[in-house]
């Protein structure tokens, strides 16, 4: 719907001056320069696919966060906060922080010690080839299709916001990403993600600063929203979640805590290779554990540049933004335009160029994340494992470079396909979501339960995924089924994903346990380095307290709890 609306918009929101255009052009030159510079340092497979495993905790941590901080994410959640209020913050706090800390402290040692190059690679070591093949093939193709959808969405945003030709946006941005990733591999992608992370903050941070000044601070903002909406519900995180009908999102706290905070969030942040790949590049285990903790610390701050601008739009914009359908019919502005509208409200020449560069940077970091994950999984988990096992390291690097180009071309093809058949977008996004929750069940049991067997892992993953597809199809055929899946007649669309994820995760776990108990266990010596209880995690020795990941994870946890109480 986001793109359908944008396709039908009529006029550009923002006009750029020459200095804004220069800032955008310099950005493109900078990312290409980084790619060309890093090509000289990218020779081996480890260099290309894992950035030489020499990233510091800060670089890996910011790359980890930035791969997720795409512009669709920025604009989409700013729109959601305009529509639903501060409830959208749950996707940044309970929907991310506990999972990131769990990845750091509990799961990272197994990913790192096993020396796997990917999440499907871990499944191969733990559950065997069938589980890897199922996971790798589904991940590779869904990832490259998602990249195409993001590319198309970006081109539409550029068309609406800046009036750019849609084909120009698609080709320029995708070829830029293809060049810098094909040249420097994952190292180039991560370095650019760190750059993009800085630009996103520098480009958008002025919105909450100036907006809160205009609104009279946080209390002034709350007061203005309450006056406009006739309710204080829009600025409370938890107090309205006691019932499905008490909040604009139509969701219950159990859906937020168990569906979002547990299954969806843990599935995405701990098993989606797009983000986990960044952490695998860390130079040692302590850096690998610190990286998600650093990412979590910054993730808690992201609502400042995403949610607050949406709330400021709700409080301060003179016109009322409306849903997509109403916007097309009435020629009004939509929720989805709130972030560009706020950029145009506060930022003059130069600053506006920086803000737009932040959006472009977000799009490109998301696309590069998809492409690097695709090329790694394709080369290592499909090509090397199923097609050609015995080639040289140089051959696999060349394959990685070519499939980076191929991945981008398939993405472009997908973008044009979506342009012709918009409904494909909903299907592909749904397809991607089918795998996340069951995969988390499989990896979690694989790491923490040594009795889990290859047959249990494979059938749990397969049936968990099929159950998710089944529930999705059920609601498509009979929308009334939502009330059964979400356990309430008052549940709305947003609740469906939460509960579907929860049930499919449970199916995966139950099937894995039952099949494992009915099949022959693996000998413990095969599980060394892969499973809790069979693996000796290296001690951090006499490292000072303030350098320990656990210490910083505790600090982040305390801040997380305090923030939730403050905005209760």
């Amino acid at each position: 719907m986001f793109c359908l609306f944008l396709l039908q918009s009529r006029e550009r929101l923002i006009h750029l001056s020459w200095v804004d255009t220069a800032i955008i052009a310099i950005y493109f030159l900078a990312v290409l320069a980084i790619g060309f510079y890093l090509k000289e340092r990218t020779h081996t497979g480890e260099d290309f696919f894992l950035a030489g495993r020499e990233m510091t905790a800060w670089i890996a941590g910011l790359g980890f966060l930035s791969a997720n901080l795409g512009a669709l994410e920025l604009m989409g959640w700013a729109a959601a906060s305009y529509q639903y209020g501060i409830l959208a913050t749950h996707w940044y706090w309970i929907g991310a922080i506990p999972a990131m800390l769990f990845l750091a402290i509990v799961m990272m040692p197994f990913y790192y010690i096993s020396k796997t190059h990917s999440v499907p690679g871990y499944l191969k070591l733990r559950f065997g080839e069938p589980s890897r093949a199922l996971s790798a093939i589904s991940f590779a193709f869904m990832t490259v299709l998602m990249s195409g959808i993001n590319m198309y969405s970006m081109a539409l945003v550029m068309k609406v916001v800046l009036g750019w030709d849609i084909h120009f946006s698609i080709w320029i941005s995708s070829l830029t990403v293809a060049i810098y990733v094909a040249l420097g591999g994952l190292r180039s992608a991560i370095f650019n993600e760190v750059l993009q992370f800085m630009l996103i903050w520098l480009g958008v941070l002025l919105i909450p600063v100036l907006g809160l000044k205009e609104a009279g601070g946080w209390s002034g903002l709350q007061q203005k929203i309450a006056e406009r909406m006739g309710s204080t519900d829009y600025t409370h995180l938890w107090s309205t979640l006691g019932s499905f009908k008490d909040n604009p999102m139509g969701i219950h706290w159990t859906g937020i805590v168990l569906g979002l905070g547990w299954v969806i969030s843990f599935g995405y942040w701990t098993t989606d290779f797009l983000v986990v790949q960044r952490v695998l590049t860390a130079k040692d285990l302590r850096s690998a554990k610190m990286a998600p903790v650093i990412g979590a610390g910054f993730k808690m701050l992201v609502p400042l540049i995403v949610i607050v601008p949406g709330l400021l739009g709700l409080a301060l914009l003179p016109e009322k933004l409306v849903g997509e359908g109403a916007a097309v019919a009435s020629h009004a502005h939509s929720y989805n335009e709130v972030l560009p509208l706020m950029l145009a409200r506060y930022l003059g020449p130069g600053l506006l160029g920086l803000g737009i560069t932040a959006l472009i940077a977000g799009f490109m970091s998301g696309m590069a994340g998809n492409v690097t994950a695709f090329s790694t999984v394709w080369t290592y988990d499909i090509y090397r494992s199923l097609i050609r096992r015995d080639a040289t390291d140089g051959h696999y690097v060349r394959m990685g470079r070519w499939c980076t180009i191929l991945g981008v071309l398939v993405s472009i093809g997908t973008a044009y396909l979506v342009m012709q058949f918009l409904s494909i977008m909903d299907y592909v996004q749904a397809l991607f979501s089918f795998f996340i929750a069951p995969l988390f069940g499989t990896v979690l049991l694989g790491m923490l339960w040594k009795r889990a067997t290859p047959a249990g892992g494979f059938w749990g993953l397969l049936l968990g995924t099929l159950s998710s597809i089944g529930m999705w199809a059920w609601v498509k055929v009979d929308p009334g089924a939502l009330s059964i899946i979400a356990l309430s007649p008052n549940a709305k669309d947003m609740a469906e994903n939460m509960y579907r994820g929860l049930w499919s995760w449970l199916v995966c776990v139950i099937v894995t346990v039952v099949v494992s108990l009915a099949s022959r266990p693996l000998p413990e010596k095969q599980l060394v380095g892969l499973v809790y209880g069979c693996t000796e995690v290296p001690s951090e020795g006499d490292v000072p307290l303030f350098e320990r990941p656990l210490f910083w994870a505790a600090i982040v946890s305390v801040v997380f709890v305090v923030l939730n109480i403050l905005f209760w």
Partner: protein
Amino acid sequence: MNRDESISIWFFIGLLILIYGVLIVGAGIAGLSSPPPVVMANLHVGIWWGGLLVVVGAVYVYFFRPGRTR
């Protein structure tokens, strides 16, 4: 990432921020005579935010410049 012979990513970032800061300060000064049509234009945000970028960029460029021993 910090092999001795390499240029740090922080140097690239500092350089880019420095260039952006100079451009934004320039645009902010140009806007003194004809303020842009934005809310709170009287604050001349471009000048102080651009100035901040210049300082931050210069600090990064200095501390992460190629060849500096860390």
